[in-house]
């Protein structure tokens, strides 16, 4: 059985890097935290590219367009272009256009970034922005529904409220209406200890009210990897997934047959990884990383040599 949870050090780092052609990085907790880059992260990414590796960014965060991600990446010193970035706003739009072949509008609980990415593929939306509740209960069951809406899409939305939940429920009462969620992350990473509910909670509220399950685009669903792999012809056996969350990044890596590296600058701990490893439960074993580092900066010496 292949070893797991190996601490990367010395020659193993070089071995690992030589064995892969592409490296996929999660963002929050891996290359940056909030608006600050992790020390050494920009050098790692830039050197990987110089070494001839392809580098992609895979993030469940649905609040930025690819353009916005590139702006942030470049501001923090990372060499990147739009084609390198795969966020759930972009991937949801790709899914609706290319897979679902949606012919109609989306009722969107989400951000302007999601609206923008949908617009970029020619899909109109309704719903973005504040939606204050008015009237009484029976009015809400009778709200006018746009007959062109063929899908309900749920991403992160700071304007989420009962009215939006209600509208989604009314649209989803039609079984033909598609139901897509960007991701199931339960909390947003936030500095200062305050826990902010993530998209997963909003999605759960809609799923419960509608008694339907959404199709989820983000990690650990394979769709995001397929998005990248499809466009760039990646070989899973020669691809490394680097992340900070065992239940999204590492699980995606396992599900897609990638090598996986857990970095400890984010959500999950080494103890979490070891607990999954000892659990004996097949689902949990998928969350055990091949390798562990304290920070991706540990890759630097091997890259600089």
């Amino acid at each position: 059985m292949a070893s797991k949870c190996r601490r990367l050090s010395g020659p193993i780092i070089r071995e690992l890097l030589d064995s892969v052609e592409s490296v996929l990085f999660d963002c929050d907790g891996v290359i940056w935290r909030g608006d600050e880059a992790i020390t050494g992260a920009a050098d790692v990414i830039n050197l990987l590219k110089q070494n001839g590796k392809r580098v992609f960014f895979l993030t469940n965060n649905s609040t930025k367009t690819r353009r916005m991600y590139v702006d942030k990446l470049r501001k923090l010193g990372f060499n990147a272009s739009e084609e390198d970035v795969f966020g759930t706003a972009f991937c949801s739009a790709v899914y609706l256009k290319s897979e679902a072949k949606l012919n109609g509008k989306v009722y969107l609980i989400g951000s302007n970034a999601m609206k923008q990415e949908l617009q970029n593929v020619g899909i109109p939306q309704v719903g973005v922005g504040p939606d204050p509740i008015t009237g009484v209960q029976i009015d809400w069951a009778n709200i006018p529904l746009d007959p062109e809406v063929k899908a309900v899409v749920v991403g992160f939305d700071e304007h989420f409220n009962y009215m939006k939940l209600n509208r989604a429920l009314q649209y989803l009462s039609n079984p033909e209406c598609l139901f897509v969620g960007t991701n199931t992350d339960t909390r947003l990473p936030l500095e200062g200890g305050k826990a902010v509910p993530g998209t997963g909670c909003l999605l759960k509220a809609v799923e419960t009210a509608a008694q339907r399950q959404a199709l989820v685009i983000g990690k650990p669903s394979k769709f995001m990897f397929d998005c990248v792999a499809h466009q760039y012809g990646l070989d899973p056996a020669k691809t490394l997934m680097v992340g900070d969350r065992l239940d999204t990044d590492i699980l995606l890596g396992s599900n897609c047959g990638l090598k996986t590296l857990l970095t400890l600058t984010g959500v999950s701990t080494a103890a979490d990884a070891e607990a999954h490893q000892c659990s004996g439960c097949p689902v949990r074993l998928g969350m055990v990383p091949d390798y562990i580092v304290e920070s991706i900066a540990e890759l630097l010496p091997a890259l600089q040599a």
Partner: protein
Amino acid sequence: MAGAGRGCQKIRGSQIQDVLDTKHSILFDCDGVIWNGEKAVAGATEVVSLLKKQGKNVFFVTNNCTRPRDIYVQKFSRLGFTDVAQEEIFSSAYCSAVYLRDVAKVQGKVFVIGGHGVYKELREAGVPFVEGEADDPDMTIVNCPLDSDIKAVLVGYDDKLTFLKLAKACCYLQNPDCLFLATDPDPWHPLREGRVTPGSGSLTAALETATGRKATVIGKPSRFMFECIASQFGVDPAESLMVGDRLETDILFGVNCGMDTILTLTGVSTLGEAQAYKDDQAPEKKVYVPDYVVDTIADLLPVIEDDE
């Protein structure tokens, strides 16, 4: 009555009499059982009056947390149920207040995601609480003040729900000593003409997902509302009957409390759904199977009248 292969027995006439003879207490759900919206189910007022005349205890057990009990009394009266007293009404808002005051004995304030019904019951029970009031539009979870005296979060139906309320509740629940209560688990509530509206259960699910914690649920199918009734009125489940319209709420509640159950078909669940549970091989589905089925509670009427 209980046992393998039992259940879903359509009853009329003397069969109903046999069942009623052994019962001292009849518990009715409200929405879809005795009324639909603002209209009493035909015959329902007569059923309630005659059961009381026969000396039965009659209680009303509802998950609807939007009204305080005194407003319910007004509704009963308005719809022609002229002999229903406040003490006979057990709503999830009232029972949540009782739980916080008498069971949890909460020392501190309750953060409420809910509405007028819950606020009034908490006030009447003397339980201090914080309304998730309408916030300053510039307020975000990053800059909003948090109350340091919150010892419990209670979540129920709230049409004024906002993201900020959810976020605040999430922060309070990070403290493992802060209680987490939900008025009821209903994912959606029925309105007129087959329409639906998001229920307390969907808001609770959001908070459970955010916090990784499970709420203590007050309403059906949890036993607590029955325990409330039993502690105030000395009711024996073996001599009690639960009449409801929702299999996953009312019937499961009856089973959980050891009562016989009647499904009435004037509300949410259908005979087909009840039969499906009955025919299901999985043993865990048996808890949703009603002992008896009536088309409407008016079917209890001719029998009772014969008895006079």
